[in-house]
């Protein structure tokens, strides 16, 4: 597993993707700085623990930056091997295919998490830690959970449709994570966004009107944690299963 992890890190950090990676963690800081300089901090007291700057950071990091980083990492984890036709070398060695997926997932998540957390902390410094300790804990937890969840989901999409992984991941994000997750139906409980919002509400202590719960998320921490772990674990397990079972054709049919 260690060799695959090292290989994946060199693929992620050694090629052109590293510039995109750098951009995805730097630009949010610059954006936050710009907003702070132009608009200043939000005025007035905010009741009920609603801090606009904290909500902005939640929408920026767990709901956007983490998705972009997962696109670069999880979505491409397999397709880059397939399109480079290097998968042959990995699949003809005595290593279970699920281990290859797991090693790439763990390495990618472990490498990108410190970068996005660092970026988040810088942004939080710029807006002077809105909401104090509770929102700081909520944002950090949601950011790491979001990265882990989207990386797993995009790895699964990459395993299912490796040649269209990026496009399908973006479609999935738009349709499922942005639209469907707000639908007041049970199916929104299958989205990562729903549980990430629940996690943010429960840790930050932000109260929700009861009627908002079905589409925004719950306020109990245990179901939120369990939900995000279930989404992440299921997606990753399915990705490992798919890669073990399916064929990856790297040659043109005769």
């Amino acid at each position, binding site marked *: 597993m260690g060799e695959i992890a090292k*290989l994946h890190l060199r693929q992620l950090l050694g090629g052109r993707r590293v510039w995109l990676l750098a951009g995805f963690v730097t630009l949010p800081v610059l954006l936050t700085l710009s907003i702070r300089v132009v608009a200043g901090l939000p005025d007035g007291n905010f009741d009920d623990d609603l801090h606009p700057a904290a909500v902005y950071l939640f929408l920026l990091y767990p709901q956007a930056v983490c998705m972009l980083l997962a696109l670069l990492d999880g979505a491409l984890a397999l397709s880059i091997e397939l399109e480079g036709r290097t998968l*042959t070398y990995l699949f003809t060695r005595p290593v279970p295919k699920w281990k290859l997926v797991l090693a790439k997932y763990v390495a990618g998540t472990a490498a990108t998490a410190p970068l996005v957390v660092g970026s988040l902390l810088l942004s939080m410094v710029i807006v002077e830690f809105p909401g104090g300790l509770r929102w700081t804990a909520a944002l950090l937890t949601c950011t790491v959970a979001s990265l882990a969840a989207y990386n797993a989901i995009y790895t699964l999409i990459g395993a299912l449709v490796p040649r269209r992984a990026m496009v399908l991941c973006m479609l999935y994000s738009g349709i499922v994570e942005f639209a469907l997750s707000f639908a007041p139906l049970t199916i929104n409980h299958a989205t990562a966004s729903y549980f990430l919002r629940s996690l943010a509400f429960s840790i930050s202590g932000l109260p929700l009107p009861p009627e908002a719960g079905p589409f925004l998320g719950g306020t109990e921490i245990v179901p939120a944690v369990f939900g995000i772990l279930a989404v992440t674990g299921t997606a990753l397990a399915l990705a490992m299963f798919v890669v073990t079972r399916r064929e990856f054709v790297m*040659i043109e*049919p005769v």
Partner: protein
Amino acid sequence: MTTPTPNAGSALIETRSLTKLYGVVNGVNDVTVSIPRGVWGLLGPNGSGKSTLLKLITGQLRPTEGTVRVLGRQPWNDLELYRRIGFCPEQDAFYSFLSAFEFVRMLARLSGIDAAEARRRAEVALERAGATEFMHRPIVTYSKGMRQRTKVAQALVHDPEFVIFDEPLTGTDPVGRHELIELVRTLGREGKSVLVSSHVLHEVEAMTDAFLLIHAGRLLASGTVESIRAVLSDAPHNIVMRAEGARELGARLLAELAVDSVDIDEDQRGLTVRTRDPRGFFANVARIVAESGARVVEMKTSDDDLAAVFKYLVARI
């Protein structure tokens, strides 16, 4: 040359009605064969299904129908078998940011070899493939021949008992070609089994005298050169010549050799000879040219291309 040895344990490769479809396209079509251990050539024109067959053998693809067994095991997801086979793919694909040494060492580690031993084995394999000189440079800087040697080294690094080379001579220079042919022969002498795919008959003929012939996904023949030559013995061969005095030469060839026909070009300098006895033709043509007083400036057989041979075999079936 190492002639395959029957009954040396389980068959090297055994297939029954092996079929692989890509949608409606046939990659491999109803192949049934059992070959013993030894050095084998897999011959077929481009697009004949060689690579598909090799991917079935190495467990990268699953049969659509039928079965394949390699060293007595079904290759799909068989990790134990992967320890015993080495595969050198046709495609020029690498992690180009690695050096040959890093690449081969990494694949040795993935074969279950510990770190120190993997380093040693990588050095040995790279030396064997003639890649020592450049092995610490990034692969992105390599020539085609260097990359080919690197691929060969990774196939050998875990000391497999069965090595599979897919079109290994493509893009190699004459020296590299000679070394690779020698390597395959040496592996055979060491008791390894080898399967080499190619679309060029004489390349594989230099490595082994045992062949599988495949065309359009179907196995046309298997066996030694002699047995395949026997199948091909009455296949017509076209020999194209350009000569001054072509008409006189053509007449002598028709009169003295087992020649079916001679066509003279309009410019009276080119002639195409059709014969079913190419060996007899080539054994005597120099004498007849000298006796006829013709001056031959070019002579080639248009049937060098395997496709022509396979076309003939397909027509016979």
